[in-house]
């Protein structure tokens, strides 16, 4: 819901979620719930659909990155060894104009951010 504080009043957002049997129904219920309780979200979020990632290579790419990132995170957080460090380094090596945003939130960083997140108080609506 935080997103709608950063979009313009005439922006519209369509969501396409992974058609995963375990999570898809929860996603839909979450979407309905947000639209029900928040008028601004109801205006901005205009559609939701579910797609098979076999037909969307970009979703396969996202799976590629997220799987790699979790391996790196497990090493960063718990020193769990993994074999694909060179691949993560290769993928995320600087190559302008490609821009990377990489964040690993371990225990210390989460604890540090907790009070800031609690104190963040966005306005409920935006004109």
């Amino acid at each position, binding site marked *: *819901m*935080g*997103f709608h504080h*950063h979009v313009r009043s005439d922006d519209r957002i369509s969501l396409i979620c*992974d058609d995963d049997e*375990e999570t898809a129904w929860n996603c839909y219920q979450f979407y309905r719930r947000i639209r029900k309780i928040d008028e601004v979200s109801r205006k901005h979020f205009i559609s939701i659909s579910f797609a098979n*990632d*076999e037909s*969307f*290579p*970009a*979703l*396969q*790419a*996202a*799976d*590629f*990155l*997220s*799987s*790699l*990132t*979790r*391996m*790196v*995170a*497990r090493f*960063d*957080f*718990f020193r769990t060894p993994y*074999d*694909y460090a*060179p*691949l993560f380094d*290769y*993928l*995320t090596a600087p*190559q302008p*104009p*490609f*821009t*990377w*945003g*990489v*964040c*690993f*939130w*371990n*225990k210390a960083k*989460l*604890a540090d*951010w*907790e009070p800031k*997140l*609690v104190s*963040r108080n966005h306005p409920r609506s935006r004109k």
Partner: protein
Amino acid sequence: MYAKSQSSSLCIPTQHERERLMGILHGYFDESGKVDKPAVAFCGFVAAASRIQSFDDEWNSILRVYEMDSLHMSRVFKAHVPLSAKIRKQSFAERIETLKPFADCIRKHFEYGMAMALMWPHSKPCHQVRRSNLAKLTTHTILLSCRE
């Protein structure tokens, strides 16, 4: 961009003639790790809509070369598991070389990538972080990254 029948000789459109411009960005995101895992990741890529088709074409051509239908990391990362009739059992180093063309394809066509991972609060090390705040954290991370 505007038709020759514009009333102005300079072809400067008046306000009511101006077409609305719209930038369309496509973002594709996926998670790794469910709530029972100690670490979860949320990652994805963003590009202008016009670049997605070329990405799809190149990605699919790599799959065809490898005689694969799609790339599923739960299988791909097991280097001892054959991926197709062409990509047989490999060492980790060989599997990494096999996957590099996919990484090249991503870097070539997308403009922005985001990789975020966090300790899941159900795991003991950070149980004190409330789940409700993780959504804010995710949003905050995405926005911070986008501003860079």
